[in-house]
């Protein structure tokens, strides 16, 4: 609870900073539009309502019906975001657990490391767009298969960083536990895992956003309409008519990624106890 209080006390200036940054981005966006429109510059692209809508138009689009007599766009996107969040969160949890377990297995066997690591790395060189259709074929189209695709993107950073973290403890600390005849299990949970946590959380921050991207991309070959991926495909088709809808959807997708990231940051604050200079 102490950590929560400390976190919220530090949150106020951060919220203020965030608002200022958002205002600055808004200002720069509109300044760019103004200059390009006034001078008629066409490089790198001509600026007009279709290529770069006003920020206020994008935000306003959120609070207008997405189709005649339909619900507000933000309501539609909220439901899509919740659907995608479910996929991404499931994938994140599966990927996190699998990634962590893989690292724990690898750290105990140099042979397994040498044998398996190249394939683990190779798995990430295959584009997710090539993997997704196969997963859909195997598991049938549905949010579960999307979660698996998200997990595929999630596990890799967790494995690599956790492996590094599990090996990061001071050799003297290992000797200390050896002097007490600690079992490998005790060494794992009392030394290796706590020492790995800063590394694990760095990986989880990367994975949190990757799982959202994975979920959105995974929806495309599954032809799932209920998520943000479906919304992006849909609004993409109407881009020339209502470009602001796609921009607004991207805004929500970004917000979802940021929300995932912040959840990991909060969890890290609650879990990791470290000397201030060691906090990653």
């Amino acid at each position: 609870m102490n950590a929560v209080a400390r976190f919220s006390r530090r949150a106020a200036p951060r919220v203020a900073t965030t608002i200022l940054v958002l205002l600055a981005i808004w200002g720069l966006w509109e300044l760019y539009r103004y200059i390009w429109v006034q001078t008629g510059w066409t490089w790198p692209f001509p600026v007009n309502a279709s290529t770069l809508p006003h920020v206020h138009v994008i935000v306003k689009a959120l609070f207008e019906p997405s189709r005649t007599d339909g619900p507000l766009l933000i309501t539609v996107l909220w439901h899509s975001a919740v659907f995608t969040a479910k996929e991404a969160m499931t994938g994140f949890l599966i990927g996190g657990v699998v990634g962590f377990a893989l690292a724990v297995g690898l750290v105990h066997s140099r042979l397994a490391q040498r044998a398996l690591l190249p394939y683990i790395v190779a798995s990430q060189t295959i584009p997710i767009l090539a993997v997704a259709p196969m997963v859909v074929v195997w598991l049938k189209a549905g949010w579960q298969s999307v979660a698996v695709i998200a997990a595929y993107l999630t596990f890799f950073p967790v494995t690599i960083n956790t492996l590094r973290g599990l090996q990061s403890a001071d050799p003297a600390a290992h000797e200390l536990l050896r002097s007490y005849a600690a079992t490998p299990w005790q060494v794992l949970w009392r030394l290796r895992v706590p020492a790995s946590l800063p590394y694990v959380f760095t990986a989880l921050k990367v994975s949190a956003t990757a799982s959202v991207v994975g979920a959105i991309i995974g929806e495309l070959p599954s032809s799932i309409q209920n998520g943000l991926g479906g919304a992006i495909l849909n609004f993409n088709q109407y881009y020339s008519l209502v470009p602001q809808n796609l921009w607004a959807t991207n805004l929500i997708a970004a917000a979802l990624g940021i929300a995932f990231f912040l959840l990991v940051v909060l969890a890290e604050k609650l879990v990791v106890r470290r000397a201030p200079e060691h906090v990653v």
Partner: protein
Amino acid sequence: MTVVKIEGLTKTFPRGNVTALQGIDLSIEAGEFVSLIGPSGCGKSTLLRLIGNLVPPSSGTIEVNGKSAQQARLDHDYGMVFQDSVLFDWRTVARNVSLPLELLGWNRARRKQRTEEMLKLVELQGFGDHHPWQLSGGMQMRVAIARALSIEPALLLMDEPFGALDEMTRERLNIELLGIWTRMQSTVVFVTHSISEAVFLSTRVVVMSPRPGRVAGVVDVDLPQPRTFETREQPRFFELVTEVRELLRGVGAEDHGSVLAEAEQV
């Protein structure tokens, strides 16, 4: 009773084919405070780690408490204090001290009681809830000592525990360590590169020579107990320091700045 019995011990490291120790014979009786001193490369830390079964011997035998060094380690017969305090950042001071008790499967109530006793012993009552990084180097070392003593081992192995501390902190901790040694009635093997520290603390100083590490001589320290700050001012203290220094000179410690430079300061 003999706590440590070493016979014909040799240790070679295959990498680089280095002979770290050769033909070591040493017996340490219960209640002794034995210092191992010598220039760097004489294998004094290796000898300590062999007694603690952290590395295996190449030949010869080591007995601790009348059993093999390995069995003694498995039976938790000794506590070890390292050069660094090796405290776990993510644990509070109290939980660092109780770590060995956790490994032994003690229940929470017993752990709490023993931890409090230990913190009192090293005069760190009230610091149990602090984290290691909030303490000074000297306090961190006291936590490490409390942790080593928590299982009440018959034997305490210390590897240059005060090497990284300033002179004043080191002298104060020397006195405290002797107080703990007296109260716990334990046996201590203490590695150091400080002649004055070795003489001040020990009942016996084992001087070692380098390449390969051998026992060059043993100096019995007959200074009266308990030792105090005044002990360092007695003529007998200087005589013993000189005796150790002469032995170190004989083993070619001239090549090794640290020991001799310190010898000149005493």
